[in-house]
């Protein structure tokens, strides 16, 4: 019920913000083609499900501002992850985002000695700047759209993080993304290199007893555009393995993203987030709703 409430709250917020923007005559518009702005990923950043893309969130063109809210639920074998937040695209150039992640250990919390329903919370503030190329218009060039960005992450469970060997409860990820729409093949391709110390996205802190340095990690996405409204694809994301108590492995997903219209889109995925905190093969369903204007 709580999850449903989040979705409804996010959608209501999106709808009312949209109405307010129109009433105030702000330069909001829906100028991009459906889905070409990407969706919002698990860290609140414009992209796919797990990966950051070089696209700037929202449907605004270079002449306006676009914004959206999202709510994401990931139901895994032994854990739940909920994320909700807001993203704003400025002039198809700069993206600012905020997301709150709640990693709910549920009944697994008791097995880990943390207590049933123990939840790690993380705030993520993201900034992304498009630096070159245009994923959509540059169909006669190989140059992809390139963006650089940073994510400022802060976790509220410092004591537990230190107890399991984590070094810090805050951290910054830096990344560069390249996204290319290969329209004559109806394909979208993305590659991202992320410099990070984050353990399980930062939900288990930053750095650890095994490693405490920035290492490049890779995120790759490929999607096929079935129609204006529907794209299906797959993603892979590598992660550091910094903590001695539990091995961290790569994450993978297959997804479908559906745009009802420019104000509402949903992403449904099967995710395999690998091993998390000694519990193996965390697979499950990923559902994300995004409302924008």
């Amino acid at each position: 019920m709580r999850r449903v409430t989040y979705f409804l709250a996010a959608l209501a917020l999106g709808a009312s913000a949209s109405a307010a923007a129109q009433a105030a005559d702000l330069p909001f518009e829906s100028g991009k083609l459906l889905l070409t702005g990407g969706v919002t990923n698990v860290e609140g950043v414009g992209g796919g499900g797990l990966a950051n893309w070089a696209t700037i969130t929202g449907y605004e063109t270079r002449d306006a501002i676009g914004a959206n809210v999202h709510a994401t639920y990931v139901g895994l074998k032994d854990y739940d992850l909920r994320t909700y937040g807001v993203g704003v695209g400025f002039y198809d150039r700069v993206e600012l985002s905020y997301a709150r992640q709640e990693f709910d250990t549920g009944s697994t919390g008791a097995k880990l000695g943390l207590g049933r329903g123990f939840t790690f919370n993380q705030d993520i503030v993201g900034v992304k700047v498009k630096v070159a190329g245009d994923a959509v218009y540059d169909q006669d060039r190989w140059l992809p759209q390139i963006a650089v960005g940073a994510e400022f992450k802060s976790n509220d469970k410092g004591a537990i993080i230190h107890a399991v060997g984590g070094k810090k409860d805050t951290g910054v990820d830096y990344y560069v993304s390249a996204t290319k729409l290969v329209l004559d093949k109806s394909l979208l391709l993305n590659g991202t290199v992320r410099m990070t110390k984050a353990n399980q996205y930062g939900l288990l802190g930053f750095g650890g007893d095994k490693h405490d340095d920035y290492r490049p990690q890779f995120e790759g996405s490929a999607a096929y555009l079935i129609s204006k409204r529907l794209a299906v694809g797959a993603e892979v994301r590598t992660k550091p393995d910094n903590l001695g108590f539990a091995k961290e492995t790569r994450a993978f997903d297959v997804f479908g993203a559906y745009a009802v219209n420019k104000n509402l889109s949903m992403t449904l995925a099967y995710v395999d987030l690998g091993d998390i905190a000694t519990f193996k093969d965390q697979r499950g369903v990923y559902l994300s709703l995004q409302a924008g204007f």
Partner: protein
Amino acid sequence: MTKFHTAALAAIATLMAGSALAEPQPMANPAAGAEPIVGDATYKAFHEKEGISRIMADFVPRITTDPRIKARFEGVNLIRLQLMLTNQVCYLTGGPCEYGGRDMKEVHASLGLTNLDFNALAEDLQLSMDKEGVPFTAQNQLVAKLAPMQRVIVTK
């Protein structure tokens, strides 16, 4: 000549022919704004000239009544526009047509068009292609030819 020399000359000749092919060819119809799609599969997916004519007969009334962009077509000869678009799309999809209109940059230079205008028109084109039953993959092959024209069409 030894066998070796013959083989070497043949190799050089092949390389020269290869590099001649790699030289950029002058555009057959530069005003059309892009090289046509190779082969006739896309042209057939558009149901050839008749299909493209039907698409444009739907598209021109659509763009000239679209509240986002209709003001951009004030004073434009719509009969000529429809004819030019039909020939241009026929040419770009690989059909046996010539585009006899003016250059893309020249035509749009004084209009002060924005990305919003450009994308609205692309959306309307998708609707007209949908109505003709053009498969999405074939639509994207045409849109891939049109999208880079944004660089000369959008001036604001």
